[in-house]
């Protein structure tokens, strides 16, 4: 039973990515053909919330719903079929410093979406990201409370990164050259215990539309 569920899951992944690739590689119709395949260039500015409702915010049990982590990014739009556009993009959650400058943290997102515009003002995105969470430790130590006394604890002194694949869904309201987007990222989609949702709110400027 477990094996068959695993097979079904793998089958699902194959179907899912076939759907993706089919959309991405389909031959554009004549109206889409032009000298340049890139039809759109855009720039993102927004805020990112990591692990919605899963990080404790204070000592009284409050969980984080939104946080201010500035993110900037850019992307391009490549028409694939009449209905679908492939939108690769890169976003960077600006570095945060921890405890002065003991640790620097960065989050880089290498993303790809297949998008569909059912209406002129609305765009839906389905995609995936490679999330690169980087930490640069600067070393050092600190004396901190420990039991009834205090002890020496140490700050990290290496550069380490976590890499995750996420499944993403986005919804974008478009107004002339600007758009407002809610972009979600699901970590560990297939593992219930670890599944976490992050999201970004973007204001996007379409330089070429």
């Amino acid at each position: 039973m477990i094996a068959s569920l695993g097979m079904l899951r793998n089958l699902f992944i194959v179907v899912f990515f076939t759907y993706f690739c089919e959309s991405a590689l389909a031959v554009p119709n004549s109206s889409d053909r032009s000298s340049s395949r890139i039809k759109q260039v855009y720039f993102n500015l927004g805020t990112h919330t990591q692990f919605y409702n899963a990080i404790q915010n204070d000592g009284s049990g409050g969980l984080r719903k939104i946080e201010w982590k500035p993110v900037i990014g850019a992307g391009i739009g490549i028409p694939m079929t009449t209905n679908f556009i492939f939108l690769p993009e890169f976003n960077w959650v600006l570095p945060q410093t921890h405890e002065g400058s003991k640790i620097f943290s960065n989050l880089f997102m290498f993303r790809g979406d297949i998008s569909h515009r059912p209406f002129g003002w609305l765009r839906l995105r389905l995609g995936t990201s490679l999330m690169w969470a980087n930490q640069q430790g600067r070393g050092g130590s600190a004396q901190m409370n420990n039991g009834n006394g205090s002890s020496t604890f140490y700050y990290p002194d290496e550069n380490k990164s976590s890499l995750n694949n996420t499944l993403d869904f986005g919804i974008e309201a478009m107004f002339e050259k600007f758009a407002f987007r809610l972009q979600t990222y699901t970590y560990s989609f297939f593992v219930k215990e670890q599944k976490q949702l992050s999201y970004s709110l973007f204001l996007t400027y379409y330089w070429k539309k």
Partner: protein
Amino acid sequence: MQILIILLITLSSNVQAYTLNNNFGASFKDNEVSVSVDASSSCANVGMTPYELEELIVPAIVNFWNRVPTSSLRLKSTSFTGPYANITTGRLCAPTDTPCITSGDRIIAPVNDIVISCNDFAANFEGPTVLAVTIPNKFSGKSITGAVILINNRDQTPFATLSKKDKIGVIAHEIGHAIGLGHTNDKAALMYYRIVDQRKALGEDDMMGVSYLYPMKLDGFGLLGGCGTIISNDGTAAKDVPFWQMAATLGLFIAILEMLKLLKRSKTSSST
């Protein structure tokens, strides 16, 4: 636009930081680490049986440390191990504490993984209000190969008066030390040195710390990361997201797209 970018960089916040409990960033080499209770553990003063103590491990693991997708660490409860010599009455020694190590009543560390026990040796608990102590006390190079968590089982131990939720929080905190983390000044973090009013989840520092010590290396949407048994709150094996849920989500998405397309077409045809 330039002003906005400058504003964003300026507002990028400076927050607290996690620490490590040693100066060489030691962590378990294997990402799958077992947590067990010593088979001989007597917790008379704590007012718990070893079985009740063992029951606290699963929520301490599942509700906290195993929930971090950016970490490859997968803790699992393996009920009872041992008994280990002196673990209920002996002294817990740091690896560099030579006088302690040479004493006859020192606790012999487990060969691997993390072991929890009640203990009533006064010198292990500096002061009557200390709830528990932990030392990763077996190393191989820069890797931890064993850690001991001792619950204060002395007369009038404060651990006995804690609620079940707080006991779980204390054990989760001590597991944090066992896997290599130190304290933080952030009250929201589990690795804060005191119990807070309500402990529901890890803080950002905890998540960053465990991700630093056990970074995830491409998890393939969760399929590739961590091969350990996944245990749910009630201690039974948790099921992955059912297949039908995933298929239904995708189906729904496609159906919505198609419906919107139809709607658009019908609007266009009615207007012509």
